[in-house]
């Protein structure tokens, strides 16, 4: 059970949160992409052996959605590789 820092509530047990999946590609204009591009947008998500940016919801807390970078090998919550967190 990880210790996740909610931007409002501070460090809380993972059991207070719901995982919202990795941050994928930006939603394309569905009327401007090919079938292949649309399928890739829908089905292919980042699955790195290393840091992944992902969404979490403080469902049993303040209700905030936020993103963290987490290393999938260690579960360490790491600084964003691009410095955005």
């Amino acid at each position, binding site marked *: *059970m990880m210790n996740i820092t909610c931007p409002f509530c501070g460090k809380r047990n993972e059991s207070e949160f719901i995982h919202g999946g990795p941050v994928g590609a930006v939603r394309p204009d569905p009327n401007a992409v090919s079938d292949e591009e649309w399928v890739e947008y829908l089905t292919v998500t980042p699955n790195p052996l290393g840091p992944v940016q992902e969404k979490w919801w403080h469902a049993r807390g303040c209700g905030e959605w936020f993103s963290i970078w987490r290393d999938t090998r260690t*579960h360490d919550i790491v600084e964003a590789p691009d410095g955005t967190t």
Partner: protein
Amino acid sequence: MCIVINIITIMQNYSVFSLARNALTGHRNWPQVWRSPPLKDRYDVVVIGAGGHGLATAYYLAKEFGITNVAVLERGWLGGGNIARNTVTIRSNYMRDESIPFYVKSVAMYEGLTDELNFNMMHSKRTMVDVVQTWPKLRELRRRQLVMDIYGSTYEQITTEELRRRIPALTGGGPDARLPVICGMVHTDAGVNRHDAVAWGYARAADARGVEIHQQTAVQSLLRGADGSIEGVETNRGTVRAKKVVVAVSGHTTTLTETAGLKLPLRTMNLTAFVSEPVKPLVDVIVNCPDSGFYFSQSDKGEMVIGGAPDMGQSFRRDIKQHVFEDTVTAMLSLFPSFKKLKLMRQWGGHLDIAHDASPIMDQTEMPGLFVTAGWWGGYKAIPAGGLTLAHLVAKGEPHPLMAPFTLGRFRHLDFVMEAGTTTAR
């Protein structure tokens, strides 16, 4: 008799007679179960991953299709991936036409595997009993029942009284319980066996047919040829070339395919299991409690082998999430209160990749010659038929009919195979 002799020429026959004969010589003359040949720089087929699916694929390539110039490359030790970590539940109670026949075939192959490989799999066809606690779950299981019957798989409803007679330790879930037991469903085809034996049996038999198994051989990247097709793999022991490469590395599929720029609809998740201390026989069936979210069986050593829900989030760390674990334990105690005094002895995690629709993927990728078998969520039960159908695909270049619904092509029009969320015991 000549059949027996033939087998002996291939590999030492295992039997009570050979055991007795070897006992007299202090067991000094047992041959090696598999060889350790030098790594060549070229094979017809390279299989990445000496887990259940990789080894079975190599075996059937050799046996069914005569392709023996095959190398199985394993990063760690043979049989050390998910085949060493799963809960050995073998069953075919699926819901959809796409899935059931495949698993019926796999269960039947498992039942004959001891003879096929001359290695005791300790296959115990002990049936699985679902403990049903909600009406929607019962409706779903009944739905499966009649579709399964079409394909020869059995599923029968039993009363709560009969359920408690078959599983005397099931003393929870009474009328006043949080989730009272409604009835049971019995899947007599289900069984358990010994996972190490499956890995070792396939490895030994594949080796005997000429397949080479190379442990401590980590594939670092896939090599793309000038024409865009696969050319081989780069390993920690040098380049190995092959026109056909099979990726059978549950959990790490995308890690490998990304080295060739391929994108697959897979995510890696962690699933945990745990065993109790060994106790005398108490439960002789596989108990599955889908509404409570756990399942278990008692091993021949006496341990309760227990599995529950997966963790949230992607993970390559084989970890135990305490809150997920506690949820599984509390659910178990609600139905089996006497287990409060039973003790946890060992727990572990394993990672597997799950496809976008939670059904397996077996296909040749857009990189010609590169094959993947992935997305197995409960892939242990699929090993024999998975190996056979993958060998078929590799040898013939087209999917085996049993696996035709599970190609990558289904995503082209979002034609998902939706088995997800239909059972706990995966």
